[in-house]
């Protein structure tokens, strides 16, 4: 199941764990990324907390935790090479995997059609 937030994160949900990244639209707005800071596995975040920071050549931006949960894995590949987020934001450029405290909370997020409408 693919869901989106109005803060331009995407979530791919499988078995109570969401793989989270930022959308192609967000990446287009940010431009070339040069630095990514990711949360450590085991850390817990509430919805809306700053879970990650990305920096383009020009500016830093926060990436918010889309739902309550615990980080179970973060993607070292984008720390080593932030341009992966630019080249494949909704694939190899994922940020972290979040074990959801309440899997039913995903229902409140946007589906793909609603997100497309948001950025249209």
């Amino acid at each position, binding site marked *: 199941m693919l869901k989106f937030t109005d803060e331009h994160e995407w979530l791919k949900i499988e078995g109570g764990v969401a793989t989270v990244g930022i959308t192609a639209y967000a990446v287009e707005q940010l*431009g*070339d990324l*040069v*630095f990514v*800071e990711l949360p450590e596995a085991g850390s817990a975040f509430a919805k809306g907390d700053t879970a990650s*920071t990305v*920096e*383009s*050549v*020009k*500016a*830093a931006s926060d990436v918010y935790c889309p739902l309550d949960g615990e980080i179970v894995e973060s993607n070292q590949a984008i720390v080593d090479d932030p341009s992966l987020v630019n080249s494949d934001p909704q694939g190899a450029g994922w940020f972290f995997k979040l074990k959801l405290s309440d899997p039913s909370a995903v229902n409140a997020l946007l589906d793909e059609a609603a997100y497309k409408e948001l950025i249209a």
Partner: protein
Amino acid sequence: MDDRSPLKQTPLHALHVSLGARMVPFAGYDMPVQYPAGVLKEHLHTRTAAGLFDVSHMGQIRLTAKSGRIEDAALALEKLVPVDVLGLGEGRQRYALFTNANGGILDDLMVANRGDHLFLVVNAACKDADFAHLKTHLSDTCDLEMLEDRALIALQGPHAVSVLAELWADIATMRFMDVAEAELHDVPCIISRSGYTGEDGFEISIPAASAEDVARRILEHPDVLPIGLGARDSLRLEAGLCLYGNDIDTGTTPVEAGLQWALQKVRRGGGSREGGYPGADFILRQLSNGASRRRVGLKPEGKAPVRGGALLFATAEGGNPIGSVTSGGFGPSAEFPVAMGYVPTDLASPGTTVFAEVRGKYLAVTVTALPFVTPSYKR
């Protein structure tokens, strides 16, 4: 700046939009921050080939002595800048600074000797204040004109000279900071071999009506890409060049800013035209005794960029800040984060470690000689 006032447009505005630029407000103008290639590619293209910048938002001012003598115009301007203007030869340009009564910097500018007048290029955000400042102090002896009907473009990078030599062969004989008049595509232009990227290159003043045509034709050259303000900022930062309003302002003096190279001997203590500009007492004293703080290069030890505004500390425990970062970001050519800021003079030696506060953490940054990349000016 009143946020509600409509943004002004340069004569190249339609060109930027047609090239797919992302436009942002800057110094009261609607300016291109980047084009579809993106900031990284634009930056690297300028360092390896040639980049075309629209700097028409900057002010172009003509200063003419009522006597008609260029020497009188030069001596008049020397009342406002700590720089040798009288000694500036015809067809030569020099970096200068307007100072205030405390030795602070009102603006930085370029001054060219155009034979019968001085030609000044000043920052966009300061141009109205600069013009008023000049009028107030010099209008009894000089005529001043803000040239509203001219655009200004910069072609920067190692291929800039070969691109422009296809239009005017003699351009290759110009040295760094030479100024000449020539026709490019049959349009009379004022060309200086200068810029603000650390690269060899040219700034070209063009009559506004012909500016888009000249710019479009230069962009047709396969070596040239249009470059936005984003890459302009990262290029000048790597080159260790000050951005007015960030790295220098009314609260910093030329000595603190490390710009004493711009203050020639004749205007210093013991020189034949010592002092005589606003804040001379402060600046001459700092030239002899040194200043308590200094602008330095800062190289973050990690991969995280350290931005302007970050506070600097002597230790990783924080405490009282010792200074702050004035500009910072990622250096695409340096391939690491780069920054500049002010630190106490006793911590200004290259190799000293200080700590910058970024998102609540204290990151080690090394005081580093500027620039981060070696300039390729044709002296």
